[in-house]
């Protein structure tokens, strides 16, 4: 794994994702995309589903992408990646393409958990060699914060309002990382924009496997989540420290926890700074808070039991994360 200075040099030689985007201050998307693209050594082709990333990086006549970039529709990033990768494979076999190329598809949670799930499942099952990155901001943000399959239980969204008879989204979120792992692909991992080194290492592993790889990256959205724009990294970090968003990977079928908090924080630490959960702190909603804590505890225990490998101690992110913890 290259160190940060080598990575900085790599980006100077080839800056793949640039500042020419209009993503909001505090948006987790550019942090995620920049990190992932820069750790890949080989030339990269990006495939992008509709969503904030696509819309805010391609304002005509400008683009933030300095690499081949393909956008077709909302639901088919994985299908497009399949087609491009297949064409590449054939041309490469015929000697028409002299070098290795990597394919990375980016989709939001709406484009991945919901509308693009069928395309993704097909591509995983067919075994195309590509990396699919879901930046999970837990709702359809580009169209104004509608609830998705990734929106957590009890979060307020524009289509899951809070009122006398409603408390936000009444259903639990689905666990996409597990769904993808059930496809028996060589590499699946969950990461967060807060843990830079972990994300970089995972992206590196993901493009090195000969087959489909998937990263589910927790990505803040200050507009939709309702938190100060200058607190994104801390908020994402709280998702990890409360075990709401565990960092783990499934490599060749082997489950491995990449990080265990020294002291698991109560889930309220993650919920409180976000306006979408503000109603949970009004009186009368204590049972909901308890229910959320119970769900997190159960999921975490299940995951710990499932993981054969525990993280090396200390976590390789080490000093970097120490400062504000």
């Amino acid at each position, binding site marked *: 794994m290259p160190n*940060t*200075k080598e*990575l*900085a040099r790599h*980006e*100077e030689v080839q*800056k793949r994702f*640039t*500042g020419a*985007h209009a*993503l909001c*201050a*505090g*948006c987790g*998307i*550019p*942090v995620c995309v*920049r*990190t992932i693209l*820069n750790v890949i050594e080989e030339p990269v082709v990006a495939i992008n589903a509709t969503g904030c990333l696509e819309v805010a990086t391609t304002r005509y006549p400008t683009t933030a992408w300095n690499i081949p970039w393909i956008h077709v529709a909302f639901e088919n990033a994985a299908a497009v990646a399949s087609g491009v990768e297949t064409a590449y494979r054939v041309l490469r076999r015929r000697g028409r393409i002299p070098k290795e190329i990597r394919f990375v598809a980016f989709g939001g949670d709406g484009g991945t958990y919901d509308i693009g799930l069928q395309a993704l499942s097909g591509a995983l099952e067919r075994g195309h060699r590509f990396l699919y990155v879901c930046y999970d901001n837990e709702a359809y943000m580009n169209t104004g914060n509608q609830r998705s399959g990734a929106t957590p239980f009890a979060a307020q969204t524009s289509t899951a309002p809070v009122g006398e008879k409603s408390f936000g989204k009444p259903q639990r979120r689905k666990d996409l990382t597990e769904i993808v792992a059930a496809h028996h692909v060589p590499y699946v991992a969950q990461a967060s924009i807060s843990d*830079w080194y972990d994300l970089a290492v995972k992206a590196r592993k993901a493009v090195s496997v000969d087959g489909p790889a998937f990263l589910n990256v927790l990505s803040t959205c200050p507009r939709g989540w309702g938190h100060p*724009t*200058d*607190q*994104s*990294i*801390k908020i994402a*970090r709280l998702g990890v420290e409360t075990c709401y968003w565990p960092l783990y990977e499934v490599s060749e079928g082997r489950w491995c926890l990449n990080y265990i908090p020294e002291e698991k924080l109560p889930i309220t630490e993650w919920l409180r700074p976000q306006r979408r959960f503000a109603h949970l702190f009004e009186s009368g909603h204590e049972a909901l808070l308890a229910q959320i804590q119970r769900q997190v505890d159960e999921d975490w225990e299940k995951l710990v039991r499932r993981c054969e490998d525990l993280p090396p101690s200390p976590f390789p992110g080490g*000093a*970097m*994360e*120490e*400062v*504000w913890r």
Partner: protein
Amino acid sequence: MEIAVNRYEQGNFFLAIEPRRCKGCGVCVQSCPQGVLALNGEGKVEAKEIARCVFCGICEQRCPDFAISVYKERIIQPSLV
């Protein structure tokens, strides 16, 4: 047009911040292992404790808006041109 760049130095190492690009998201502030950076009253980032900087480049790597450059010797980074 002259583009404002705030330069900080420590021997041969430099850290340059281009306030025009900075959106004040705090990503660099919260990622710096040394607690060097802070947002000022205008919501722009400053290297408040440059003496503690180890020039690791993490802030440069993470900024979503390419507002920070960390480099050795007095050269202009491509991102600042």
